[in-house]
């Protein structure tokens, strides 16, 4: 075993970018592999539900091209996890297609390993029946109906499928849904480095340059891991890390800074030490890793919630704003009455009609403690129904009622909302919802993931 392993994290999320000159600087430090996360549940359920991607193919291609060129020139592995946002099989195929295109254009050849994370509904139902699926905090109810309704369900893989692919000689690994940290932990753990040091390094590196003192734009990050500590230092000379910036990163997108739960165990950073080794590099040591007594894979699922039609508008008249709440309540009721008179009483069960009020409580909804409003209020009307056609048809009735809804002070017909668009209604398309927060106990760490190889 060599004394250290060097890790280059290209960026926090593939497609968001990094500086080419930073990548070149980092390559001069001789990394053992390049890793990058390509996914997140942060932007919501749409990407898992629909299979669409957070960034454009052009953005993925720009980042992946530079990573593949650098990795092939240095003959080191490139490892990308959670392909194209949610890590569905379709999103993985999309990223693999982009990789093949790059290989063709740049005349690169490599052994491509792909890890599929999408889950079979029959397998999950069987696991549910045998009590091998358990809920995490705040999980919604999971039954066979939820599994059946899901548009896509992915499992979040650990390091084991990556290690399998590396041991089978993959030069480039593209994975479906994966824990962010497994992308960076797999190779060092495979080489026998202390898992506590490795997993802590992975948590710091998985967001690219997020652990610097002031991150002005997405960029690369670099770490050198030995058995009992790692040193993190940004390859971009404009950036610096200090002990507080590195320790602070444990807070990010995590419910506790002291624990990180992975399929194979739990990293505990309670006794971690963060020491400056220069004005821009930090040495981290002292974490512990406790192997799990049962190996679990986290599930993510999304189902269709309906199709939506929206209207955006604003109100400026002080007379209306003075009685805003009662005016809006009256408007909402009048719109529902109009829908009922056009579509009949059966329509009641087939749609939802909601409004978001910008300038009042659009960010916090019912939890907003502030009651004042300003000189202008923005309205976002929202109809949700089973089809886009129905949502749009209902919204057309809302639009006309809303724009002329009166106040007692003005006599004659008024136009009470400013619509910026013609037509006012906007088809938003499908809306999805996350429908599970559970873990599965597979028979083995590889059971839920399908690994394929091809020579590109």
């Amino acid at each position: 075993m060599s004394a250290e392993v060097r890790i280059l994290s290209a960026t926090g999320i593939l497609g968001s970018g990094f500086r080419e000159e930073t990548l070149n600087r980092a390559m001069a430090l001789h990394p053992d592999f390049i890793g990058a996360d390509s996914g997140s549940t942060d932007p919501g359920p749409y990407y898992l539900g629909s299979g669409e991607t957070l960034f454009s193919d052009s953005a993925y291609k720009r980042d992946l091209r530079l990573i593949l060129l650098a990795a092939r020139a240095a003959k080191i592995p490139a490892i990308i996890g959670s392909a194209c946002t949610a890590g569905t099989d379709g999103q993985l195929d999309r990223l693999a297609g982009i990789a093949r295109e790059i290989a063709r254009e740049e005349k690169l050849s490599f052994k491509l390993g792909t890890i599929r994370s999408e889950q079979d509904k029959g397998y999950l139902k069987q696991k549910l029946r045998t009590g091998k699926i358990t809920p995490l905090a705040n999980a919604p109810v999971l039954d066979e109906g939820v599994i059946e309704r899901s548009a896509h369900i992915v499992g979040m893989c650990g390091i084991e499928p990556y290690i399998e692919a590396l041991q089978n000689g993959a030069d480039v690994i593209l994975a479906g849904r994966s824990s962010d940290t497994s992308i960076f932990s797999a190779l060092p753990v495979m080489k026998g480095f202390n898992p506590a040091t490795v997993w802590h390094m992975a948590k710091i590196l998985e967001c690219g340059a997020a652990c610097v003192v002031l991150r002005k734009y997405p960029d690369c990050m670099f770490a050198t891991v030995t058995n009992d500590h790692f040193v993190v230092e940004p390859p971009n000379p404009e950036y610096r890390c200090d002990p507080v910036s590195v320790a602070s990163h444990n807070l990010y997108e995590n419910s506790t800074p002291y624990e990180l739960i992975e399929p194979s165990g739990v990293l505990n950073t309670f006794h971690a030490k963060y020491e400056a080794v220069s004005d821009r590099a930090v040495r981290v040591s002292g974490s512990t890793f406790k192997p799990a007594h049962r190996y679990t894979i986290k599930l993510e699922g999304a189902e269709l919630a309906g199709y939506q039609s929206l209207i955006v508008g604003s109100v400026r008249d002080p007379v209306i704003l003075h009685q805003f709440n009662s005016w809006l309540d009256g408007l909402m009721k009048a719109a529902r009455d109009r829908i009922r008179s056009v579509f009949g009483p059966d329509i009641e069960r087939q749609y939802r009609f909601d409004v978001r009020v910008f300038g009042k409580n659009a960010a916090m909804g019912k939890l907003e403690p502030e009651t004042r409003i300003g000189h202008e209020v923005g309205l976002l009307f929202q109809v949700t129904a089973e089809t886009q056609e129905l949502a749009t048809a209902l919204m057309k009735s809302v639009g006309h009622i809303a724009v002329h809804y009166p106040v007692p002070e003005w006599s004659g017909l008024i136009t009470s909302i400013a619509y910026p668009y013609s037509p006012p209604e906007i088809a938003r398309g499908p809306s999805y919802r996350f429908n599970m927060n559970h873990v599965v106990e597979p028979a083995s760490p590889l059971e839920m993931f399908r690994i394929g190889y091809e020579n590109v």
Partner: protein
Amino acid sequence: MAKLWQVAKLIRSKNSGPFELTFDVIFKDRGTYERARDAKIISAEWFAKTYRLSPDAVSVIHYDAASAIKVTIPRPVISGDVDDTDVFGGQQYGPLVDLDVP
């Protein structure tokens, strides 16, 4: 008396997965952090009242290594669901900003 935003270098909220909302207050210096921590101005009770939860549902962690206090609560609505107002959970810290600190 100072406001929390005057003594913090960062106040933020963010999803910790689609089912939890997490708040970070990172203080400018160790002394202010320790005063705020010991005065318990950021407490399970305050969060329970503001976000209409049971105090048992609120996790408050003092993170000395970063002079930070982290609070995690169940998300009021699952991220991106029809009733959600904030898919990233990024603007839910508003009421914290003007808290009085000793």
